[in-house]
């Protein structure tokens, strides 16, 4: 019934798609083409003088890909990983606890609401708050001194470790609740029979976690990893506000998007374009993985893994 009737209405399908694709074409596709085009031109402001646009081929690409690029890629990666590792570990543990009925977690809804809260907070305001709290005369230093833990003020933003740790802590706080809830949903999707069978067979909680839960939720772990990487690549608000766009000390918290932001403001369209194209390529690869995961019936062999896990669960007896 559906096929015959809807063929005659095909034009409505196209009409309803117009707003989305027209908007995408104007505000994303044209800008993308223009960005790529600009990457081949020398076009920047030097003092009051505008240089260009002159076609320079791949010169911008070569210039952007220097030691600075590697340093900022490194920074972005470090800032991401020091937030991501504790985030995924804590999220896995919390998700396992939340889904374990035998633990009888009291106030489950309350905990979920609280741990998700930081995810909705304006990152720039959150960064400004942390800047105020961790400044030399801020509350954190005052509390630590009052409690006798330290004798003198700690200059958090003066040290590489301090600045990076604060960015890491903030990223952890903003994202562990979200990840916990995602992983929890994934674990709840696993049939309870599997867990019951494992429990009956005398599986310890640790065994259940590593041999059954983890393999079964592997696709969602992979999805979390990739989307978090894409988020990490876009890291901007927190380091930008914390360091007032400078990324100091020693440019140790200067992220790739902060660099792009500075090119755009200089303005240096050529290099901004080349950097954007590099970022576009990296994002494109990551997008491809996400696409595969969303469309594959058996993403990275999870069904196979599920079978294996069930066997492992039985064997664990």
């Amino acid at each position, binding site marked *: 019934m559906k096929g015959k009737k809807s063929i005659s209405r095909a034009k409505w399908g196209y009409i309803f798609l117009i707003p989305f694709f027209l908007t995408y074409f104007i505000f994303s596709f044209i800008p993308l083409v223009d960005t790529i085009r600009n990457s081949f031109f020398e076009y920047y402001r030097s003092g009051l003088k505008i240089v260009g646009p002159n076609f320079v081929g791949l010169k911008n690409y070569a210039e952007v890909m220097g030691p600075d690029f590697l340093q900022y890629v490194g920074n972005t990666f470090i800032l991401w990983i020091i937030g991501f590792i504790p985030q995924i570990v804590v999220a896995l543990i919390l998700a396992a606890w939340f889904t374990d009925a035998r633990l009888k977690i009291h106030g489950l809804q309350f905990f979920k609401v609280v741990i998700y809260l930081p995810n909705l907070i304006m990152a720039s305001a959150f960064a400004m708050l942390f800047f105020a709290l961790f400044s030399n005369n801020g509350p954190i230093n005052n509390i630590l001194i009052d409690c006798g833990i330290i004798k003198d003020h700690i200059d958090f933003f003066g040290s590489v470790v301090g600045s990076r740790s604060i960015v890491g802590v903030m990223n952890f706080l903003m994202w562990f609740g979200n990840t916990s809830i995602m992983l929890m949903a994934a674990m709840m999707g696993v049939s309870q029979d599997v867990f019951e069978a494992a429990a009956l067979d005398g599986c310890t909680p640790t065994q259940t976690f590593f041999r059954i839960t983890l393999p079964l939720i592997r696709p969602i772990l992979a999805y979390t990893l990739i989307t978090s990487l894409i988020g990490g690549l876009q890291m901007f608000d927190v380091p930008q506000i914390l360091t007032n*766009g400078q990324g100091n000390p020693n440019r140790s918290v200067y992220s790739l998007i902060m660099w792009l932001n500075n090119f755009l403001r200089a303005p240096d369209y050529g290099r901004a374009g080349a950097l954007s194209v590099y970022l576009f390529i990296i994002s494109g690869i990551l997008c491809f993985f996400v696409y595969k995961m969303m469309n594959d019936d058996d993403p990275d062999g999870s069904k196979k893994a599920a079978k294996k896990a069930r066997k492992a669960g039985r064997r664990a007896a």
Partner: protein
Amino acid sequence: MEKGSKALKIRSIIAHVVLVILSFMCLFFFYILLINATRSHAELQRGFSIIPSTHFIENFMNVANDGTFPMIRGVFNSIIVSGGSAALCIYFSALTAYALYVYDFKLKKVAFTFIMAILVMPTQVTALGFLRLITNMGLYDSLIPLIIPSIASPAVFYFMYSYLQSSLPLSLVEAARIDGSGEFRTFNTIVLPIMKPALAVQAIFTFVGSWNNYFVPALVLETKSKFTVPILIATLRGADYMNMDMGKVYMMIAVAIVPIIIVYLVLSKSIIAGITLGGVKE
């Protein structure tokens, strides 16, 4: 058995302790923020206190009357941008999802594949072209380019599409057609009401996302009276911070954060349920 239940009890206690610590970490910073927003500059200079003071209204009036950081104006601008984005985004995402779910046409598969391919593409990579485009269109330093592009939101589309799959019986659309309802009217009067829960959840997420957005608005807006809240916060960071009234600084941060927290606490149940709905294929 005895040993097993004892181990379980210990694990349960550990779980609760860890959860309390993590919750404390999440709430502690906001607690300090709220306390400090009630204290005067002089009190803040004297050190930390866990007890709120009496300068809440005074700090708030200082923020409201400050011409250098037009915070009230900023909140107003942010509400326009976020509200506009949320409304356009959910309506057109639902329409796009409906088009790809209900109709059969030649390019259907291509269109769907395309949207899925750009699902998580960062907007920053096209920021250069975007900035140049809107400058050429005469929309630089205007709120419009912050609102219109939200019509094309692949992630929201995907959420709506999943929702339609689970809750719109095609027979309902057929029944409407037999009753003589036009295609557009069917969508507006029959399908949209069915999608209400999905629309509500995504309206909240889009609103919050837009409210918090800093990168693009900071590039597009130039006039102070058009600034949205995140840009004002960034300006505050760039200002002569050490000589500022700290009570006012905390109050400004509170103005940026607290409205969202209140909305969240009121709607937390549906928000938390909504996080997982469209995010992951299960």
